[in-house]
């Protein structure tokens, strides 16, 4: 049985309300943190916990916090990244919808640790319905003196503001997010300087994912060391995985780090096996930006070890035979899915979402999309396949922000593992979706 640390209260009726949440042990971690611990101690627990960022890159949270420029006399800010727009990832939305107060708890504790007086939740524009939920939670917390001036009678004061985006995936990239928060066009900034020194309004800023910040509450409640005891190796604690695709039970699951992917896909507790008993063909294990893996490589590593849901295991084999945990969007394909069509679809997304600042990403994403569209529709040429590999290579690593990599990896990995399927599409329009082809356009 998996252990629920984040989602333990999720099924309690009315848990969104402060009173109910409080009655079930909510805000105890905040009481503990603010009353019994110093800010440095709270940060120390987070460092001990081994918590790594849940937004995609997996950067150690305690370490990121320690980079924050504390010498500056400017105000410091905490920004909660709730822009969740990665195809296949829908865990933050679930968490905010079901347990808004858990996030508020995490934000209070993190702000306390960082010495922050103002915290922003930058939320994806399409999540309009969540703005009200979060603002209600903030209001309730304020009424109960968990937010506002002199929280719980201490010297610590905090305000949280919810700021909706305007519908751009790129605004999830932390520096584009900061630009957008400042009311500008959401173009990623050129780094350095990093947000820890020059973030929002040129002030020292920490940007963390919703799940990362929410996890701070259970860490303070159970202690960093206990948290670090869960999971394996450098992947501590639990992780929310949003599973979708051709499985029996799509949804958001909290798993203990180290769960074998096979158990995750086939056990009744989680995905419940493949829909209609089809064969497993491939999985994108960490949201659309990470490399796709064919069935044999998602279940076992190239060395024959069972593949586990951890940062280390999923990336074992690097780009040859591995992938990444990413943001935890687990997309499952069965034997009837067309990899070419899926790759084209993802590339269409990245083409649409590229901010357009740097040449390789702006031009490369569009070029790959046009080629993949042709291949999928039976107008490709054999040389297009190697051309795609070359374009992906020329984008990767040469851009301002990681969106370029995110656009290149799915293409490169799909061709690496499913080259035959691309070749079969040359001169033959995709047969898997015959009769369903709606989007027509001039080639």
């Amino acid at each position, binding site marked *: 049985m998996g252990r629920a640390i984040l989602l333990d209260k999720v099924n309690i009726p009315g848990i969104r309300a402060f009173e109910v949440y409080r009655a079930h042990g909510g805000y105890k971690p905040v009481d503990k943190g603010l009353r019994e611990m110093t800010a440095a101690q709270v940060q120390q627990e987070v460092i001990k916990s081994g918590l790594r960022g849940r937004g995609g890159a997996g950067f150690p949270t305690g370490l990121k916090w320690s980079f924050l420029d504390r010498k500056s006399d400017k105000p410091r800010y905490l920004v909660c990244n709730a822009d969740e727009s990665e195809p296949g990832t829908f865990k933050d939305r679930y968490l905010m919808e079901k347990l808004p107060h858990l996030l508020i708890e995490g934000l209070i504790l993190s702000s306390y640790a960082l010495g922050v007086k103002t915290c922003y939740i930058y939320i994806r524009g399409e999540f309009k319905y969540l703005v009200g939920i979060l603002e209600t939670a903030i209001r309730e917390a304020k009424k109960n003196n968990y937010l506002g001036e002199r929280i719980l009678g201490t010297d610590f004061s905090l305000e949280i503001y919810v700021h909706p985006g305007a519908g751009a995936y790129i605004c999830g990239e932390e520096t584009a997010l900061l630009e957008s928060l400042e009311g500008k066009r959401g173009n990623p900034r050129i780094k350095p300087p990093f947000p820890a020194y020059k973030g929002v309004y040129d002030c020292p800023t920490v940007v963390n994912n919703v799940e990362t910040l929410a996890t701070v509450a259970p860490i303070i409640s159970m202690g960093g060391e206990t948290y670090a005891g869960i999971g394996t190796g450098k992947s501590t604690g639990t992780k929310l995985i949003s599973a979708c695709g051709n499985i029996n039970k799509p949804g958001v699951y909290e798993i203990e780090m180290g769960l074998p992917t096979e158990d995750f896909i086939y056990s009744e507790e989680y995905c419940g096996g493949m829909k209609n008993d089809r064969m497993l063909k491939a999985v994108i294990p960490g949201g659309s930006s990470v490399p796709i893996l064919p069935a044999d490589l998602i279940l076992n590593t190239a060395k024959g070890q069972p593949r586990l849901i951890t940062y280390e295991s999923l990336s074992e084999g690097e780009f040859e035979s591995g992938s990444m945990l990413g943001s935890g969007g687990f997309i499952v394909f069965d034997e009837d899915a067309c990899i070419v069509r899926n790759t084209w679809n993802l590339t269409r997304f990245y083409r649409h979402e590229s901010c357009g600042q740097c040449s390789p990403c702006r031009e490369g994403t569009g070029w790959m999309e046009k080629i993949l569209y042709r291949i999928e529709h039976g107008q490709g040429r054999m040389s297009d396949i190697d051309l795609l590999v070359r374009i992906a290579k*020329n984008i990767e690593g040469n851009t301002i922000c990681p969106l370029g990599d995110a656009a290149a990896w799915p293409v490169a990995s799909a061709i690496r593992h499913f080259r035959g399927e691309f070749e079969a599409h040359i001169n033959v329009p995709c047969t898997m979706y015959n009769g369903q082809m709606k989007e027509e356009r001039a080639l």
Partner: protein
Amino acid sequence: MFKITIDNILIEVEEGTTILQAARMIGGKVVPPAMCYYTGLKGSGGKCRSCLVKVAKGSAKDPRPMPKLVASCSTPVQDGMVVENTTSAEVQEARKGVVEFLLINHPLDCPVCDQAGECDLQDLSYGFGMEETNTREPRREYPVVDIGPLIKLHMNRCIHCYRCVLAAEQLTKKRAHGMLYRGDTMEISTFIQTAIDNDFSGNMIDVCPVGALTDKTFRFKSRVWFLNPMNAHRECSKCSGKVTAWMFGNEIYRITGRKDQFGEVEEFICNECRFEKKDINDWVIDGPRKIKRQSVISSNHYEELKKGSIIHPIEGTTEPQE
């Protein structure tokens, strides 16, 4: 002072200097091409990626190489840094890729473009591009937008370097122009097509590395290589009045800022000098402007090429399908 090595050449520079600036102090072949960086425009650079270099050694203190190629225009030097530009095959390969990306949607209409001969994209392509094209996708086309009587905007030629946006923001009082949309549909436009009229808007023509913004008063008048660039000056209440007059015989065909060997103007000039003073009597001619002929303006530039630029048909067909 920091010591930094670029392509095995050691130079000492001040703290805060970027790799590109350090390379420019050395000069010659080690200077990476810069399509978006412009010294006079704050916040420029980092976008086109043509100036990518490899940092083989981060600094004396932390000798690890940087994991990715970096934009030399926006990376400050560290003491003991070792940079590879022409000596790195990886850099050459990446730059070739960047040139290709900049060209796949470019209309390649140099024969009818006023910028031809002094175009940074032409230079970049001759210097680092491939000899064949690999794309057969339709090229991007934008609707034609009229941005007023003085400046002609050819959006299809734009490489989205942001220089003109920054120039408009920093040189003029009211920005009437900016970047719309995103990704490969991104477009320079004056907001709601307001004509740009203010005293320094003409400088956008000078900072534009390609023929996307050209001088309407000079449109189709002459090829730039037929004209003699002369340093000229006049008393001007708005700017320094120091310009380059492009002349044929005694006639002034156009006025631009005085550009240096990296294509950057020494000083920005006002619209009155640029657009209205085309009579030889308006100016005191100081003498020929010494242009470092790194551009295609200089015909000798072609000699270094091994082969001519032939567009090879791909796999036996030049006919686009459908």
